[in-house]
Structure formats: C-alpha cells, structure tokens
C-alpha cells in the first residue's frame, strides 16, 4: 500500500500528475526490475558465475598443457576423488580441526563473555587487549607463532623448561601439529565468539534472573537453567560463523607449516590449493572444490535449521 503511494508520488513529481495509472504501473514494473539489477548483477558475476564455472571445470580434464581444449570427462574427477587417499585424509583433518577449534573457542568465548559481563577495575583495557589477536594479520601472526614455537630456541619451550616441564615439538611433529594449529586458531578467534556472546548477554532481560534470585536459585542454577537456554540462539550464530571459517582455514596453516610435516596438517583447503596451483590439475581441483563447497554449505544449512529450532523452542 505504502509502495503504491510512493509510486504515485514519484509519478506525480516526475509527470506533474499527467501520468495515467497504467503508465504508473508500467514504470513500477520497470523499476522493480531496474532497481535490484545492480545487486543481481553483482551476485551473478561474483557468485553464480564462479560457482557455475567451477562445476563446469570439475567435469573436464584441464591442465596447463590443454588449456585451449579441455577434455570433457564427465564424473571421472569425482570417481578419482573417491579413491584418493590423500583427499580422504585431508577431509578427516578438516573435520578434526573444525570440531577441536569450535569446542575450544565456544567454551573459552563463553567463559570470557561471562568474565567481561562483570564489572571490575580495568575491564575496558583488558577487553581491548583480548580483542587484539582478532585484528592481527594472520600471516604475520603465523611467522611470530613459528618463532615462539620453534623447538630449538623458541620462547614456548624455554618457558616449559623453566617450569621443569618437558619441551614440546609443537608444529614440528605429525602428532602435535594439528592440536597446535587449533590452539593458534583459538587464540585468534575466541575473542570474536566472546564479542558475540557478550552482545547476546547484554540483550537478555533482567527480570527472570531477579525472579530466580528471589526464589533462591544459585548462580550456577541461574546460569545453567536461565542464561544458557536464553543464549542458545546467539551461541548457534557464533557456531555457524566459526564453523564455516574453521572449515575454510587456510592462512595460519599455510603461513606456518604449508600442510606439513609431510601431509600432517594438510586440510582440504590446503590440498585443493596444492592440486590447483602447484600441480595445476585444475579440473581435479575444481571437483574437490565442489565437494568442499557442498560440505561447507550443508554444515551451514544444518546450523541454520538447528538455530531456527532453538529459537522456536525458546
């Protein structure tokens, strides 16, 4: 209705009332196509075309040697992926990294949010300090972490030795490289989770907590049975953001180990990067990308559905 009024006013303004209703309708129709057009074009060029091209590539054999005549091979790339042990291992590592990082980041982020929800001296300064890792450049941070974690003369092992604890190999061992990368990712991104949950806590109503306090609920009880259920939608959003990012993590892994030692930290993104840009098996890399894209998409869809359910329940 208001739209109608708007169009009427617009046509009045432009045609000083000389337009008939039909021409107003036509203008309305053209405008309803014209106005969203820039956005539609951007989406088409920046999203639909690359995704479509990747799918097209994944059905071809394409390398630097046959750029002018990519050969159509149907689903052969996908069939090869099914047998590719390196791809399977990379998929497992991606899931391991994501689950590990999510568990740590959400727990720590929630803890930090609860901490900063209380008033204490210097809260502002400490909170700003906690946010610093998030704004640091990942590649620069990777290099600094490598210096810190160097098993021969890094600070981390020096601290362990001073505390009479056994030195660790950190990034320099197939066993500890993924847990160490999870720690680095957690160091960098827990503050984001903290920020989101803190915003959620600030938006919560006070009354239920006051009522619970009057009824004699302990602090744990009011956290467990009031705050946590009410925060669930916020936590789900944080989970969604972080899980998509964790699945796609590239910078800190490439910056520190490039997927090593051996293949020990080669996640899907690293493997696809290598296949595409080191080996130049472009068709095959595209097929792996399509699988990866589907994985990220389905995880986000799952989380969206779960979030709707928790919201409906709340």
């Amino acid at each position, binding site marked *: 209705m208001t739209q109608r009024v708007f169009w009427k006013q617009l046509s009045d303004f432009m045609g000083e009332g000389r337009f008939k209703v039909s021409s107003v309708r036509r203008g309305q129709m053209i405008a309803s196509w014209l106005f969203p057009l820039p956005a539609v074009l951007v989406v088409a060029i920046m999203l639909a075309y690359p995704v479509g091209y990747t799918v097209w590539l994944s059905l071809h054999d394409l390398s630097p*040697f046959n*750029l002018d005549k990519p050969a159509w091979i149907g689903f052969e790339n996908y069939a090869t992926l099914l047998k590719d042990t390196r791809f399977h291992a990379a998929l497992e590592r991606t899931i391991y990294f994501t689950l590990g990082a999510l568990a740590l980041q959400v727990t720590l982020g929630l803890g930090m949010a609860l901490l900063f929800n209380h008033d204490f001296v210097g809260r502002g300064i400490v909170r700003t300090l906690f946010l610093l890792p998030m704004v640091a450049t990942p590649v620069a941070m990777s290099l600094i972490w490598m210096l810190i974690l160097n098993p021969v*003369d890094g600070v981390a092992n020096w601290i362990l030795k001073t505390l009479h604890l056994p030195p660790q190999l950190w990034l*320099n061992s197939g066993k500890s490289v993924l847990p160490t990368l999870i720690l680095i990712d957690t160091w960098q991104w827990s503050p984001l989770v903290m920020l989101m949950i803190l915003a959620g806590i600030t938006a919560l109503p006070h009354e239920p907590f006051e009522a619970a306090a009057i009824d004699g609920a302990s602090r744990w009880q009011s956290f467990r049975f009031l705050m946590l259920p009410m925060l669930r939608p916020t936590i789900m959003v944080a989970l969604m953001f972080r899980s998509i990012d964790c699945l796609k993590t590239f910078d800190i892994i490439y910056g520190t180990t490039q997927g*090593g*030692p*051996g293949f020990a930290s080669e996640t899907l993104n690293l493997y696809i990067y290598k296949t595409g840009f*080191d080996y130049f098996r472009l068709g095959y890399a595209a097929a792996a990308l399509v699988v990866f894209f589907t994985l990220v998409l389905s995880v986000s869809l799952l989380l969206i559905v779960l979030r709707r359910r928790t919201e409906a329940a709340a």
Partner: protein
Amino acid sequence: MKQKLAGFLSVAVLLAVIFSSVGVSSSLAQEGEFDWRRYEGTTIRVLWPNTAWTDFILEELPAFEALTGIKVNMETFVEDQLRQKLTVELIAGSDIDIFGSMTIQEGFKYHQAGWYTTLDDLINDPTLTNPDFDFEDFSEGAISLATVNGDLIGIPTYSDAQIMFYRPSILEAAGLKVPTTFEETEAVAAALHDPDNDFYGWINRGKGAAATSVFSSVLYGMGGAWIVDGKPAINTPEAIAAFDWWGRMLREYGPPGAVNNSWPENLQLFTSGKGALWTESGQAAATVLDPEQSGVADDVSFAVVPGGKPYAYGWVMSIPPSAPNREAAWYFIQWATSKENSLKAKLLGIPAPRTSSWEDPAFTENDPHPDLTEAMRESLQLAMPYMNPHIVNVQPWRDVVGQVIVDAIEGKDIVASANAAQAQLEELLKQEQ
C-alpha cells in the same frame, strides 16, 4: 754500417707494421663487430629466484644498463612463489622476457608446455652475440643443466653441487676423521651429538618435499634409484635402507622437530654453531663463510657427501616464446653469464658454470678457500642429475616421497609408508602417460 742501419730500420718497420695491425684489428672488434647499444631504450622484464647469484647480479646491473641503454626490471621471488607466478604468467602468455628455471625440477614440464625457446639461433648469430661470449667455455655439466630433451633452452648462471659442511675444530678435538661412508658419518654424528647443549651431530632437511633432493644422494649412494624400468622404485630394499638411514640420522642425531627444517632453518642452525655435519647445496657456503652472517666462518670446511653421489643443479636463464624483446633479452643473458661476471661471482664463492673462471689466475692465486674449491670441483665431477626423477609432475612426486621421509624421521613403519607412496606414485606416472 749501412747494412747494419738498413737491418735496424727493416726490423723497426716490421715491428711498426705488426703493432699497428694489432691496433687496427682490436679497434675493429670494438667498433665494427659488436654493437652493445643496438637495443638502446628497450625495457626488459626478468622473473628470477632469490639466490646468492641474484644478489651479485643485482649489484652489477647498473653496469649493464650503462653499457647497453637497456633497462632491466628484475623481479625476484622465493623459489616456490616464482614457480607459481611463472606458471600463471606463462599460461597467460605475458610480457616476460627472461625467466629462471631449474631444469632438474620443472624442465620437462615447461618443455612439454612449450614455454622454452632454443637459443642456438642467437648464439650462432655474430651480430647478436659478442665474440668474447665463448659458448665453448661452459662446462659440459653446466650445459647439461640447460638442456632438456636435447634442446639448449637457456644459459646456466651457476652450476652447483651438493657438498658436506663440517666443523674441523670439533672433529679434530674428538680425534675424528672426516667421514666418507654412511657408516662413518653415523659414527661421527653419534660421537659429536650433544643435544643438552643444543649441539647436534647431523643437520639436514626433513621438511617433506624439500628434503627429497638432498635425500637423493643417499638413495643413489645406497644403490637405489627414483625410477627403475619406468616404474617408481620407492619401496625397494635399497630405498627402504636409504629412508631408514635418513630418518634415523635426523631422529637420533638431529635437532628436535627436523621434520619442518629446510635449508633456511638448517643454515640458521649451522651458522649459529649448532651442528657438526651438514649436507647442502654448495651455494650455501657463501653465507657460511661470511663473518657478518655466520658465527662459524673461521671454523668450517668442506668435503664430498657421504656415499659420493651428490646432486647437481643450477638456475638457467631462458626466453619464452611470448617474449616481446627476444634480442634485448639475449643481450642481458650473454652479459650476465659473461666470462667477466662468471669470474666475479666465483670470487664471491658462487660456483661458476665456466671453466675459465675456475682456472683464471685471479681466482686460483687468490682463492681464500681452496678446501671449498676442491670439494666443489670433485663434487661437480661426481654429481648426478637425479635430484628429481625425470618426469613432468615433479612436485606431486616430491610431496608423496616427502611424507615417507617425515614418517622415517618420526620413527613410523617405513615399509608401510613406502608401499603407500609407491602406489600413489604408480598412479601419478600412469596419469602422465
């Protein structure tokens, strides 16, 4: 008296004629035959790796620009970045005039993709090649590094071989001789290994793919090979023994976390006095011997690697078919690899591809490190071009073999790991055919 005077005069005239003719011919060579300024005003674009030779040539660059009036835009990159950038640019047929490649790594791939041009036409054209260039002066080994499938695809800037670096004072103090066999090397490393004081008996590459090139000397030294009868030979008894030795040496006598160490990390360890024995490309000697960058400059010596099968390699300057300024590019290449520059680089410790540089009195009489020269010359003679298998897909091959090296260092089941790698490599070679 008259006769004497006549005789004196005739000798004088003869001498005058001889000297003047020399003068005429030399001025002819300067003026008429070779015109360095023919491509004045041209700008050429060079994509090149960061090496010790690069630092040298960048410093000399103004001399070339003054001589020829050609402007050189030299973009330098870390090796892996250079390979990626080159691949993207050469696929797109960009405006690169000269690029660097290591034929032993990517030669077959680039050759197959048609990114090289042969240089014979330029070398044989007297209007384009300075007569002092003297192509025959390049050693046979160096030219083999610039030849792919029989085609001369570039000019070598330096030819390097793997050598062993050791600390003579520490070996002497322990009463140990410089090891030549694998058994002796292990015994020396074990005797000198002192991890509590951050001193390691053996330093070497453990970082997956990066380690495969240096590992090749052990593989071939133990009688193995990358490929036998057209099939990968990664799980043969010889190969298993080589992986086992490599893994044990780094696990038991190496620095902690060697699985992430490539040459930069090892250079750092060795120059800070933390290692007794190390095998690496001879080029690293320039840094190790520089007192400003190295704490062991006065206590290092050089030998042939254990087993006597070092690898040889070198960066080669090539002109792609898409080069906009092929002739000006050739001017730069022949100047950069001239006798004069080869000798200058040699005096800085960079192994020269030209025989004349090794024999020049300016070098032999002032050689500050005859031990390095001897080790390098001997190694270049022994060196084999098998740092990598002679296939197109070298990079995935190295990644797969690198995983076996990491498993060996971490003490995992080598046979199982080698068998898994063998299967993957067979698949890889199948794709190639």
